[in-house]
């Protein structure tokens, strides 16, 4: 593996209590200035991997290298180079936003005067000026996340780890948060490593993505590369309850590469959805299986996720489809329609 990456994971393994294998040989290389998405179902090993990379947890095997420093031997130096935004809120609710930032600066050995100056600049940057001297427990969810981001940036890190940074935020809050991250990357060339459940966020924001499942990387590439690997569109045909099995008949149709049946629903991968739909519907009717619904999907990261993890993206872990659509519209607007 080349050694010029900002973040390098080399065969990382984490075994808890000698029994639970949370991470099993994870390797990847994140280039400087890249936004790297790390996706996976709950319990797949995302947070454990982030903890090993950010000097929070010692790997059982393997090496994590941050900005050229092996984490196990340089934990303190690594902590000075990275900023971590945790999944949960970590700002102190009994302190004002400004005080949280000043204290955070102090924990990096930054002087009171410099800490005060950085706090003021970050407060302005994150549009928290009006709330700067209010206790952070009075902040809205979006303001808290912005404060968390500011706390993670107060020591000007080269690499930023974001662990589910937008979990629980409304679409506006998520769009705002990602707007700041994009701006930061553009202005400072900061490397960003992000874990998220929100696949559309990853699709839009990340340069590259790795999908982890059961502690192993199951896919890695740019969002487009991953979608291309699915090999075409996905048509879902639902038949009436109790209708005969149509798997073989659908598989025999031209352009079909695979058929997966779940109850009365058939997930058909094919080269062209538009061409297949009339053929599939006719085949079902001819065989006496009434069709109750048909959908055609261009490959999305949801499909990629399903393909590589064998699991549907769970809606309860993330936003609703409407939320996501609204958010992505806003993000694209904010970014000038980058993708």
């Amino acid at each position, binding site marked *: 593996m080349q050694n010029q990456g900002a973040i390098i994971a080399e065969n990382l393994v984490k075994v808890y209590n000698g029994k639970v294998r949370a991470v099993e040989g994870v390797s990847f290389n994140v280039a400087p200035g890249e936004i790297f998405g790390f996706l996976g179902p709950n319990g797949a090993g995302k947070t454990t991997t982030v903890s090993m990379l950010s000097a929070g947890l010692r790997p059982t095997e393997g090496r994590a290298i941050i900005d050229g420093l092996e984490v196990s031997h340089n934990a303190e130096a690594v902590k000075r180079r990275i900023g*971590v935004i945790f999944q*949960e*809120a*970590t700002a102190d609710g009994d*302190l004002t936003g400004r005080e949280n930032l000043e*204290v*955070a600066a102090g*924990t*990096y*050995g930054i002087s009171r005067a410099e800490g005060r100056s950085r706090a003021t600049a970050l407060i302005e940057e994150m549009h928290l000026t009006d709330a700067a001297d209010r206790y952070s427990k009075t902040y809205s969810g979006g303001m808290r996340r912005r404060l968390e981001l500011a706390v993670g940036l107060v020591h000007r890190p080269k690499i930023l780890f974001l662990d589910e940074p937008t979990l629980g935020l409304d679409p506006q809050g998520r769009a705002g948060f990602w707007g700041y991250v994009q701006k930061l990357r553009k202005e400072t060339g900061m490397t960003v490593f992000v874990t998220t459940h929100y696949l559309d966020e990853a699709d839009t924001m990340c340069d590259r993505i790795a999908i982890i499942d059961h502690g192993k990387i199951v896919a890695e590439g740019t969002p487009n590369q991953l979608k291309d690997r699915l090999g075409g569109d996905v048509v879902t045909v639902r038949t009436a309850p109790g209708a005969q099995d149509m798997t073989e008949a659908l598989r025999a149709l031209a352009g079909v590469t695979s058929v997966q049946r779940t109850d009365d629903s058939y997930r058909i991968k094919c080269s062209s959805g538009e061409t297949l739909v009339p053929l599939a519907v006719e085949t079902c009717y001819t065989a006496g299986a009434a069709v109750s619904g048909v959908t055609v999907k261009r490959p999305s990261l949801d499909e990629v996720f399903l393909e590589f993890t064998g699991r549907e993206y769970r809606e309860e872990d993330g936003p609703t489809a409407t939320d996501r659509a609204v958010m992505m519209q806003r993000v694209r607007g904010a970014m000038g329609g980058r993708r």
Partner: protein
Amino acid sequence: MLRELGALTRREFLKLARNPQAIFTSLLLPLLYLLLFGQGFNINPANFAPPGTPPAVVQGIVYAYFRGAPTYYSYFAAGMVGFVCVTATLFIGANVIFDKLFGIFKRTRGTPAPSAAVFGSRLIAGAAQPILLAFFVLGLAILFAHIPGLTGLHVTASIGVLGATEVVLAIVLLSLMFATIFLTIGILLDVPQIYFAVVNLINLPVLLTSDALYPWGSMPAWLRTASQFNPISLAVNVLRETFFGASYYPYSPEIYLLGLFAWTAVLVGIAILLVQRALRPLD
């Protein structure tokens, strides 16, 4: 290290200042003890002396009963100082556990701040409370002596600079010792219920085997002996001997201070080992 310690200590004091309920509650407990328990329990062994006993003998009985103190209240007030040095530190570890639950501790651990700064900041703020409270108790007990209808602390010996220094040292050492114990337990544990169970297992036996509140004359011999190794008793002995004279104490305040220092050194040493292990940069 100093900047990190300063920043984290500032945080602790800011939080303390913003929690007036906790300050009020911490003042209420000793106030109630001084105002109710001490006044109501102010026993006088002279009352049990046979009629006609010469006043000098009666006074001797009282002094022997309360180790030189003129009244139970005076004896008890010095004991209360030791008592609050322990009780005011009980929550210090719980605060760490709550900070763990709220993610605040995780944030601090994610920074390069040395574990000594993380521990030290909480120790400074945690020990400051019982120290201030101890002086509040002393001040209030002395004030009560001047309020008609109330009993208070009567200092009968000449204190001097050395005596005052020794009193301050005893209070500081005892507060630091218990703050260290409870803070270490808080760092090692993650569940508040278990923390309070463990704290009670330590707190009650240590308090109840000391002579902080029991009249010396009513204690059985075995308890008197045991109490003399108790760190609370060691600190309280420094105060009582300084306030009421050396006649009823086999050792000088310096010896008691030395004992207290030994306790503190051993327990702080153990705590440092445990905390260093618990707060290693990578676990």
